[in-house]
């Protein structure tokens, strides 16, 4: 499957970051200045220590040593306070940008056309909004302050070395080529290796979920050994990649150790030569060596973070890809559909060219009428329903909704007129009342209760631990599949659309739940134009009209009584087989 959701290029990601940074320029400059000051103050420690050494070698009186020590204390306090302030400012900068990006992402994700979401599957979006956001948040929280402080420390240490004597600086630079080559070598290998490791860990996780989630099936079919094997294989491949990664990392640090030694030895030799020629004091040489030793930590940190930065950059391109999608422009106001009438004329549709799924379907539904679509899997029921819902655009023919062409309606207009309830069950995490208010923001408690009562859900909803305020969904009170479907229907009632497309499989709810849901749907659909994909024949029997589809064409249409009366009719045959009583007349509905 092609990558349906866009990934931004590096340049686009940089541009997006710039855009986020622009309104925060003052904050960015301020936090950088404060952290620079903090680091610069810290740079005073080695020369003060060096000065102490000089005082000692020059045999100054003991009392002269107090002032430098006091200065050291002042440096420590100033450094501590300014670091704290700087970190806070940097967080405000980074987290603020992330929050804005996150918001844009959610906004654009919500605006994605449904067919695009259907194609991509919700997995990609979900992984971007959880995994990628998490990666970036972690980078902003931990890596960013460390990186900024390390880079500042490195820069200022090098400046300080140069201030002591430029030749110390030159000596220290001997380490740089080794470090540069090491990082280049490391990045070449680390990217693919870490990507492979993440994949392997993901595969292991999926296998565990499948095996553990399906444990009862595994036991019933005696597939235990096979599944332990599968888990072992996937787990081991993740272990193997982790071990390869640690080998790479240790080689990386090995090379950095070499750079440290080369640099340190060079600075010591420089000090030796400069002291011998009398150009610097022993104290200065000592300070230079200590400066360089102090670089070990920040250099290692900065170089290690290059890796995190790469991962975060990759995640950023995936977030920006969605966040920078053009926002769907709601065109000029047009006349709203006058009623809930639906006119489908000569509609054809194919997912793949040459393999039409819907062929020349013509169907007229008057406002408030309920039509059931019946047919075998693959007959085109769901596709036809999706065409009416506007998820796909017909290849031929037109669909008129309340006198207006569906294709010409904006997303917002369609949203107000047609509602779709599908097999997908989702309970939004949070209080039950909040979930319901998604479809009508300003609904009163009484309206919520009425909607729940309408779908037969009020009794159990009020019996929840905190009634309508009970936290449901992920991490909250678990609702049964039937309850979740009732909730979906209650949302529908609150949204109060003129036209409803109902494609909910009641299968997962079991037969008893299915009956409860059919009654609920019956009430939720009252007074609305409805196209119902009938998964159970009772759903069809309850409709005003039944349309039987076969291979994308309408083959029978009529009321339940008309169709069951057709000798050898398709619907009649199905109904007889289903009701299992050829001798008995059809159940009245």
């Amino acid at each position, binding site marked *: 499957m092609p990558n349906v959701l866009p990934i931004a290029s590096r340049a686009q990601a940089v541009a997006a970051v710039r855009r986020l940074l622009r309104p925060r320029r003052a904050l960015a400059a301020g936090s950088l200045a404060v952290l620079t000051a903090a680091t610069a103050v810290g740079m005073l420690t080695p020369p003060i220590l060096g000065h102490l050494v000089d005082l000692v070698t020059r045999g100054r009186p003991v009392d002269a040593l107090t002032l430098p020590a006091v200065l050291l204390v002042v440096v420590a306090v100033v450094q501590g306070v300014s670091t704290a302030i700087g970190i*806070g400012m940097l967080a405000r900068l980074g987290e603020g940008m992330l929050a804005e990006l996150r918001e844009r992402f959610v906004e654009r994700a*919500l605006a994605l056309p449904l067919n695009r979401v259907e194609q991509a599957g919700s997995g990609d979006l979900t992984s971007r909004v959880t995994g990628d956001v998490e990666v970036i948040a972690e980078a902003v929280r931990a890596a960013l302050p460390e990186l900024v402080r390390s880079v500042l420390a490195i820069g200022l240490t090098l400046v300080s070395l140069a201030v002591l004597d430029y030749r110390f600086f030159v000596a220290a630079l001997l380490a740089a080529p080794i470090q540069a080559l090491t990082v280049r070598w490391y990045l070449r290998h680390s990217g693919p290796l870490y990507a492979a490791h993440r994949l392997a860990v993901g595969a292991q996780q999926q296998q565990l979920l499948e095996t553990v989630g399906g444990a009862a099936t595994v036991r019933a079919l005696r597939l235990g050994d096979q599944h*332990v094997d599968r888990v072992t294989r996937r*787990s081991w491949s993740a272990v193997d990649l982790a071990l390869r990664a640690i080998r790479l990392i*240790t080689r990386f640090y090995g090379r950095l150790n070499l750079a440290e030694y080369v640099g*340190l030895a060079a600075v010591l030799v420089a000090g030796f030569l400069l002291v011998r020629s009398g150009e610097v004091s*022993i104290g200065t040489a000592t300070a230079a060596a200590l400066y360089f030793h102090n670089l070990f930590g920040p250099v290692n940190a900065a170089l290690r973070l290059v890796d995190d930065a790469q991962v975060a950059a990759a995640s950023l391109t995936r977030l920006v890809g969605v966040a920078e999608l053009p926002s769907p422009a709601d065109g000029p106001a047009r006349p709203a559909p006058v009623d809930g009438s639906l006119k489908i004329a000569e509609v054809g549709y194919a997912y793949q060219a040459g393999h039409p799924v819907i062929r020349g379907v013509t169907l007229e539904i008057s406002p408030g009428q309920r039509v059931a679509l019946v047919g075998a899997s693959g007959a085109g029921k769901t596709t036809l329903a999706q065409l009416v819902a506007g998820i796909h655009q017909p290849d031929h023919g037109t669909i008129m909704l309340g006198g207006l062409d569906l294709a010409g309606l904006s997303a917002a207009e369609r949203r107000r007129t047609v509602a779709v309830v599908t097999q997908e069950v989702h309970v939004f995490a949070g209080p039950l009342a909040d979930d319901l208010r998604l479809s009508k923001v300003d609904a009163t408690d009484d309206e919520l209760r009425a909607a729940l009562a309408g779908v037969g859900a009020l009794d159990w909803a009020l019996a929840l631990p905190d009634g309508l305020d009970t936290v449901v969904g992920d991490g909250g009170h678990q609702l049964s599949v039937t309850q979740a479907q009732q909730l979906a229907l209650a*949302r529908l009632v609150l949204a109060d659309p003129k036209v409803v497309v109902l494609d909910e499989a009641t299968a997962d709810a079991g037969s008893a739940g299915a009956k409860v849901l059919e009654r609920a749907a019956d009430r939720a659909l009252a007074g609305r134009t409805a196209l119902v994909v009938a998964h159970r024949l009772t759903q069809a029997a309850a409709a005003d009209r039944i349309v039987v589809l076969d291979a994308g064409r309408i083959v029978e249409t009529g009321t339940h009584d008309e169709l069951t009366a057709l000798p050898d009719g398709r619907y009649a045959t199905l109904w007889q087989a289903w009701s299992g009583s050829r001798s008995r007349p059809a159940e009245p509905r």
Partner: protein
Amino acid sequence: MIVATAAGPVTGGRVLRRAVTGQTRYVVPAGLLATGHQAGEALVPVLIGVVVDEAVSTGSTGALFGWLGVLGAVFLGLSTSYRFAARAGERAAEQAAHEIRRELTGRVLAPYGGAETGQLPGALVSVATSDAGRVGAVNMAVTAGIAALAALVTTVVALLTMSVPLGLLILLGAPPVLVAAHLLGRPLQKRSAVEQENAALASGVAADLVAGLRVLKGIGAEPAALARYRVINRRSLAATLRAANAQGWHDGALLGITGVFIAAVALVGARLASQGAISVGDLVAAVGLALFLFNPLSVVAWVNGQLALARASAARVAAVLSAPPAVPAGPAAPDTPVRGELRFDAVEHGPLRIGDLRVAPGELLGVVTADPAAAGLLVRCLARETDPAQGTITLDGVALAGLEPDRVRAVVVTAAHDAVLFDGTVRDNVTAVGGPTAPVDAVLAATRVDEVARGLPAGLDTAVGERGRSLSGGQRQRVALARALAADPPVLVVHDPTTAVDAATENHIAAHLRRLRAGRTTVVVTTSPTLLAVTDRVVLLDAEGGTVSGRHGELVAADKRYAATVLA
């Protein structure tokens, strides 16, 4: 291989100990090498002092190169030690976690069951990943702990050799400094943890909205969802910033306190040096070592934290491993050849009640329960996922509860309503259980999986994805039914096998089910009239354990309750 019941209770302590002792080959060398690394790191500032003393102050070129050589040797040593210490430690950690993962999987899948009772699959998986990882990581903590202790000893010896008073100042001063920083940081960090949790909310809500995207779009609730997200996102940002500020002050305080301590060391050291009690080189080295000391001390604190985490994780691992079995593992095997006669005698298990019921060998029996929960329980009892609280179920006259669960399942294959498909091709799934003689083609035709396959890109060799997710609900159900039928067992129990299948296909399946199962016992637990119509006999179980039995057509006409249950 399935893990046998452990000899003795599995405790968290035992899990933790085994994670380390099982990796002795790697942990011991890793600890020794890490010690070498720490010693090397400690020697670097000492050697800087020596170079200043012996070469820079004296101007001796020989001494300079001699000591630079020593410094190089130390670097080589510390680098090599680190390299192999890290590798061995990581290997120990990963391997220990892997072993735990394997053991947990074995326990969850053990025929006698019980490990997943009261646990969500996600929680169990997190035990097998996060918790196993944390227990494994205890090997790293042990390695680092050994090294930190060694570094502490090295530093102590070095400092005390230079100067007893200065050494004592540093040794006695550093721990209180660390404790002070810790005490100062604790309230900040505690607050930070709460704020972090708040901060995570924004991601959680975003993921939840995206997961329900289709539902949102279905009712046009995108603007409402976005408005709600904005509020949460801003609240979350505020929480994150409070956490970051707390962290900043913690870091700043630590930096300040350390700096003040170093100032004290420098002052005392300089006074001692100016009195001639220590050399200038010693002074330089002492300041370096004082800074270095914070390293092993903070590692000790880290190891402590890791051990606490690992103990909690190990307890969770142990809880799964030592979960009581769901059913006792009787020693006996069913009689062969299997006739396939099932008898229920005064069975009571929750809502499931069966006073007296006999399923004749070779019978195709439909079972209808008034309470849907009872249907699920009946299937679970026959699968020996659970044993009835009262009464007995016998197979060919032998009580199921006295049989080895795995052996029962070899004879009685159950296809629960919520049975899942596994990653692999359609063909892999269908043939997962049946032997080489399985009537695969007949089964594919009977369940119309052949028709499903024709619509798939690679036919029967199309991968179904994790849990069969790339198939539709109806397709999954057909493949699952085909899998059960292809197992071709003496006794087959299927539960609501066609709820997601369209009426035409259900009709086809019903017509072929009879022929495929001719002569072997088959129990179909369902309320589908289409399926019930083809059975030899239907039994309606009522809530009191009573049974009404007869042919589907007769019951529909004669029994009002039956008609109401199967015809909506």
